């Protein structure tokens, strides 16, 4: 009541004076504006530094000489494979989490999203203990097939999937949760079995979120460093993806590191553009 009363024009006043009052109410007060400006400066300065100090003139030569192309190719391939795997197993997982009830499911949700908050390097250690040659699962794999995952290109994908898939799962799960279960019920009365309903009704409804989740997953996989370097190592051409290449270059040839970073920054900006409708719109959530 009071709120409404405040917003309404008092009788006799012209609309323009009301407009002025409203605009004044939207002006940012300085106790909020100043810290906000500091935050903006803090976030943008590193990017500015990169642009200012980048070896622009030597950029083509540096990129050609370094293992940038190879690392970029590896990164793009592994991140894409990771995204495909994450969609194939992550979407069904999201469906189970969204549609099931009970304490066990809540616990499961917490566990599968743990990699979101787990330091990636810890993830890498955990992956070694699970899928390493002496790991609880890797041991059997080695005994039976003679194959070991660590320090192969497959290990890069494993590390990236471990870290990136939860991003896709939580995004899609949120969409499934808010998707209208009533439509699934309607589909059932029209003779659609659960799998058909999922394919023809549920999936199209969450398609925008699935796309966003996939892009997010891909971007996270592309930037994965901690788990990858622990579990897969840093072998050029085999396991050296872009972040590892930047890390290696920084020790030996800093200008090359900056050049490689610029490439990754470009990819990030592209991702942001892809997701702009979703994230840059005020009030939009995951």
């Amino acid at each position, binding site marked *: 009541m009071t709120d409404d009363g405040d917003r309404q024009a008092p009788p006799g006043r012209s609309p323009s004076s009301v407009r002025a009052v409203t605009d004044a109410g939207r002006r940012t007060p300085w106790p909020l504006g100043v810290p906000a400006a500091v935050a903006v400066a803090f976030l943008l300065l590193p990017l500015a530094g990169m642009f200012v100090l980048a070896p622009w003139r030597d950029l083509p030569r540096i990129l050609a000489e370094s293992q940038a192309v190879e690392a970029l190719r590896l990164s793009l391939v592994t991140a894409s494979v990771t995204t495909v795997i994450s969609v194939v197993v992550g979407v069904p997982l999201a469906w189970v989490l969204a549609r099931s009830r009970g304490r066990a499911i809540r616990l499961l949700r917490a566990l599968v999203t743990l990699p979101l908050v787990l330091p990636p390097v810890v993830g890498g250690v955990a992956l070694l203990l699970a899928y390493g040659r002496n790991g609880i699962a890797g041991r059997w794999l080695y005994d039976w097939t003679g194959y070991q995952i660590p320090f192969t290109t497959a290990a890069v994908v494993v590390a990236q999937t471990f870290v990136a898939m939860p991003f896709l799962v939580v995004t899609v799960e949120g969409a499934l949760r808010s998707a209208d279960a009533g439509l699934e019920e*309607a*589909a059932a*009365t*029209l003779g659609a079995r659960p799998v058909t309903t999922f394919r*023809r009704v549920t999936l199209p*409804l969450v398609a925008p979120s699935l796309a966003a989740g996939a892009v997010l997953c891909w971007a996270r996989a592309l930037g994965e460093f901690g788990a990858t370097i622990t579990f897969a190592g840093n072998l050029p051409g085999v396991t050296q993806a872009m972040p590892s290449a930047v890390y290696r270059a920084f020790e030996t040839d800093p200008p090359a590191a900056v050049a490689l970073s610029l490439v990754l920054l470009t990819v990030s900006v592209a991702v942001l553009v892809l997701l702009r409708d979703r994230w840059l719109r005020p009030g939009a959530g995951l």
Partner: protein
Amino acid sequence: MTARADGEPATGGALRADVGVVRGGFDLEVRADVRAGEILAVLGPNGAGKSTLLRALAGLLPVSRGRVTVGDQTWDDADRGTFVPAVDRRVGLVFQDYRLFPHLTVLDNVAFSRHVRGGRRPDARAHAREVLERLGIEELSARGPGQLSGGQAQRVALARALASDPRLLLLDEPLAALDARTRLEIRTELRGYLATFGGPTLVVTHDPLEAMVLADRILVLEGGRAVQEGVPAAVARRPATEYVARLVGLNLYRGAMTDRSTGRVDLDDGGRLFAAGHDPDDGGGHVVPLPATRMLVAVAPTAISLYTHSPDAGSARNVWTGTVAGLELLTDRVRVAVDGTPDAIVDITPAALADLELRTGQQVWLTAKATEVTAYPAPG
């Protein structure tokens, strides 16, 4: 198709439901039989169990007790553990909020059922087009559900249900989501559309007018129990409960007949009424109440006259006094609530209101001719 053991043809396709559903403290016990081609309205207040019944019939909710059969098919049999899920029931359910698939065009919404049941897409679409034409809405085919008005969405939802070749058609508050004006238009149309369906139809509603206009028969549900069942005219004229009386706008009293010759009924809450009203449904009065039989007495608000002074000793046999408890302006008349023995709702014209200068708390005299007062045995 084969005939059933009891000789009823399978093509009859009547719905026979005698079910109990227990659901978190609420229990529903109801029997509903609907012939093929017949429309039954289930009328009741919110929380009466209407939606529970609907969901049980649709197979979205298993019954705790009883059987549901349609034609020669058993959909639910709690004793034998038979439960056919919604997906296999062939039930056309029109949801209150329509639930059209937002990512599909109107045509593909209507074609959905045939397509997911294994039909080829062109065939399903051709059939959908036929159904849309039958309902006169083929021009909506290419639109998305978001581009439909409420009335159009309602028709598309019905088309989608009819296009699924249902054996049973269920409508959940079909007009509730429409604005008053559209509701008026659609209500009469809907009756025509429903007539195109040859199987049993069950319409759930809380709106008595909707039930009267749409249905061949009305089943009144209160607190999970059927309290009255009959053709609309009978339900409107002889309401069995206060809820129904309020819906159809009648004063209803409970009492006991104490004098058969004069039709005197002593009311439970005090007062008495002489009832000589004749109910055309009685067919000459085959219901002859014995003295002291539990009776219901119905009086229309328009059948009661209201005076601000003691009326002349006249023709009306029922005369009593009361005080004005409230006034409500309806579209073409004024509804006066009177506290008295018994209480009554009286409808007068706005002109009469001006003449009488009524105000709350004022003493008034009420009269009703015995011939305008209908008494009938209380059910149960």
